[in-house]
């Protein structure tokens, strides 16, 4: 199954980066796919514009790395990115609680 991730991609990338630590785009996409058990099967190239946008916003930092013999751009969270992730997580949890409250039938109400 794949889901429409528009609007949530920044949160997912920031969260995945917190989990993986400094990493390059390909590994980050694999982490997103693996951690979501295949649910988030987005066009892989869309992660790079998102990473670039997050970097311009100061939420991630990047540098070239050729430790593996291949020149790769590695990304990591900045302090500002960690704070933004915490804020986005709070918003997400509030949204989930609100949606769940509406979707879950109230006790005693007809199903």
């Amino acid at each position, binding site marked *: 199954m794949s889901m429409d991730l528009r609007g949530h991609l920044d949160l997912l990338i920031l969260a995945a980066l917190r989990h993986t630590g400094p990493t*390059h785009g390909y590994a980050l996409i694999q982490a997103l796919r693996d951690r979501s058990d295949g649910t988030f099967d987005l066009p*892989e*190239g*869309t992660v*790079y*514009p998102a990473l*670039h946008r997050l970097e*311009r916003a100061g939420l991630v930092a990047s540098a070239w790395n050729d430790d593996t013999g291949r*020149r790769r751009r590695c990304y990591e969270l900045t302090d500002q990115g960690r704070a933004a992730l915490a804020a986005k997580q709070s918003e997400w949890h509030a949204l989930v609680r609100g949606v769940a409250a509406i979707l879950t039938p109230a006790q005693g109400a007809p199903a």
Partner: protein
Amino acid sequence: MNESPIDAYLDRLFDRLAGTGTGGRRALVEAEDHLHSAAAQAVAEGSDRAEAERLAVARFGDATDIAAQLRRAHISTADVLRRAFAGAWLLGAVGLLAIGVSGLLAEALGRLFGPHLVAGDTAGVTYTAERCAEYLRLSPGAPTCARAAELHHWGEVVEYRVAAGLLGLLALALYVAVRRRGPLRGPRWAPPTGPVALVATTVFGLAAALLALPVLAQAAFGDPAGIGANLSAGVVAAAVTVAAAVGGLHRIRTAG
């Protein structure tokens, strides 16, 4: 030899990232690494090389979409304003230059067919005594009021236009200088080719159409007096329209 799917994809992405500068170049390196990593993984899992590359490209996403997202990621409002400024400067210079060329064309028409064709008044146009006196004062050698008015209009149709053209030439030379060696060099100040071609095609096309109307009307009524003024401007506007449209289409083809 067939180009590999990854190379073909990177070529398409490269074309669509024109003007994005460092960010686009970096994205291209990342895309290349990503696609080769994905293909290598697929080969390791048993796919043949060509199939692995096709799969990697398909999973990466449409080159046009990815490039558009990268453009949005790297082009800020300030970038848009910078490029719009450069485009407006270029369009303004070309517009003034076109006016100048239409002045030269009007002069050529006037020399070939007489100034009446370019600056003459249509039948029935009359002037007040005060206006005639003013025209005759400005052109003391003119034998009649109509001839004096014609000389005055000649100045408006030819000399003012040529002066505008010289201003356009100066603006264009300055534009080329600041783009090549001045503060406006580099892709951040590159005018957006597509929008500039579209605006030029629309504006000059409309101008050509509007100028053609009185020319056709005068031709229909068989009164050529002053027709050269609109004819010269219309011909130049039409030529610029065609050039802008061809340039725009070429840009679409190379990007598409």
